[in-house]
């Protein structure tokens, strides 16, 4: 059981969520989230990453107060996340699925979300900020998928809440819009807003998140900064073999597209050995590269893990 952290904005202890089985079905319920514990501190940007069906959205919806956990406990802003009167006015939520009314205009949709948010803001300035001012009078039905996501985002940031949940905020956005969205996130973060988000874009999480939680099969497998998560990873060395592979003086993992691949946990020593060997034998190591372990390697390793619980 985690201890309460003084500057914690979100605290979850051993949270589980099981979808009930359908009536008359012989199958049991589906445990989408199991024993998740995490803390998000004030002003932090925390990203939940994971494979499809890892339980990210369900976890987020439990933390948002949209779902009551079937086990464990959640506190958001020192209260119950489902408390509409005291907690919700301080929280912005961007759902994964839009839920916008097709018949309303962009302006009307954002104004409606603002009216029920418990916060005050100006519709025009919010639309200007997310780049939707030219689409103000356009019906939601006529928007592209990316524009609808920006409407969702506008609703979430309305009134600059203390805490914002973003569920796959950049899905469907073009690169320019993605960059613009992250710029707004950075501005709000600088002003003290806390973010909890999910994304499939690893590079976004690497750049924008202070800490990352990696989920797989409903559990939080790893958590920390990018440096923490990749600290014990392997480094990959590649080059075109100058002769027989057997002659290479370090352990070769394999070959890939005509390149020798060496995965090592002691890159400095192995690279030095290779350089000395190449110089001594007059070899030129063509297309030589050294790649440090990245989040994608850690992410890929999750897929190979099996649930033991």
């Amino acid at each position: 059981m985690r201890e309460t952290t003084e500057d914690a904005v979100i605290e979850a202890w051993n949270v589980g969520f099981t979808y009930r089985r359908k009536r008359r079905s012989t199958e049991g319920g589906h445990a989408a989230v199991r024993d998740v514990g995490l803390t998000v501190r004030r002003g932090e940007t925390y990203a939940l990453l994971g494979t499809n069906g890892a339980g990210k959205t369900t976890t987020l919806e439990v933390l948002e107060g949209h779902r009551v956990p079937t086990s464990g406990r959640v506190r958001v802003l020192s209260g119950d996340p489902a408390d509409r009167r005291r907690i919700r006015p301080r929280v912005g939520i961007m759902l994964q699925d839009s839920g916008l009314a097709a018949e309303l205009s962009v302006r009307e949709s954002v104004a409606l979300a603002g009216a029920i948010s418990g916060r005050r803001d100006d519709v025009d300035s919010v639309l200007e900020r997310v780049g939707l001012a030219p689409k103000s009078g356009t019906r939601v039905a006529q928007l592209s998928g990316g524009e609808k996501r920006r409407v969702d985002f506008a609703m979430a940031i309305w009134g600059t809440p203390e805490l914002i949940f973003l569920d796959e905020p950049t899905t469907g956005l073009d690169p320019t819009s993605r960059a613009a969205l992250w710029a707004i996130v950075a501005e709000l973060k600088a002003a003290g807003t806390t973010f909890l988000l999910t994304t499939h874009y690893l590079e976004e999480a690497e750049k924008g998140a202070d800490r990352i939680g990696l989920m797989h099969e409903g559990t939080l497998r790893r958590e920390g900064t990018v440096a923490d998560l990749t600290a014990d990873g392997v480094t990959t060395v590649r080059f075109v073999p100058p002769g027989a592979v057997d002659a290479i003086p370090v352990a070769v993992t394999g070959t890939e597209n005509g390149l020798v691949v060496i995965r090592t946990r002691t890159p400095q020593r192995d690279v030095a050995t290779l350089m000395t060997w190449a110089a001594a034998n007059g070899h030129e190591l063509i297309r030589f590269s050294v790649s440090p372990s990245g989040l994608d390697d850690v992410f890929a390793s999750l897929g190979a893990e099996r649930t033991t619980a």
Partner: protein
Amino acid sequence: MNAIAAAELRMLVRNRTVAGAALLFPMSFGVFLCFSRGAHERGGAVAGVQIILMVAMGTYVTVTTTLASRRQTLYLKRMRGGAVSDRAIIAGLVAPPVGVNLVQLAIVLGVLAYADVPSNPLLLVAAIVIAQAMFAGLALATAGLSASPEHAQYTTAPIFLVATAAAVWFQATGTDHLIAVKRTLPGGALAELVETAWDGGGLSTLPLLLPATLGWTVVGVLAARAFFRWEPRQ
């Protein structure tokens, strides 16, 4: 609640076909009633059938379909992400169709009352309020059992048909046969209540009619609490 209701009304009015039908249908119906009713007949029996038919269609079917549609598109889920209570969300979504239905009733009954003023307007208003509460509650419950707006066309049929059939049965046969059955069915006691209010019948039956109609209202509200869902099934 006001913002939700305003948005809902905007969506309703924005569809010109729906808005036109919502006003033209009752107006033409009122004119039809005015001309078809016998010169010496009182309007109670006709008013009873009309009120139940129109509330069943305008409030019950419309609210059921609207809620099923709003749930399917996750609009309800989005509303629940805000700071307003569930009751305020429901009130905001239900108020516009009920409001439009009341305007429709005012037009039709106004035309009818032009030739034959109801004897007990207060009782008539009470009957209409009870009818709206009963059908709104049943609509919430039925919406919980309707996976989609298309599905709602079938799930609303039993209550719609039973209620209107009970009203027509009462209009055709009065209090002569199987009156206990008529009063027990949804719409039966309500039709009798409207006729009593319009034609000025004795109020001695009120202790029987009011519990029967309020009973269905309570059933509607309890069923709504039991069956209403905010999100599509996972």
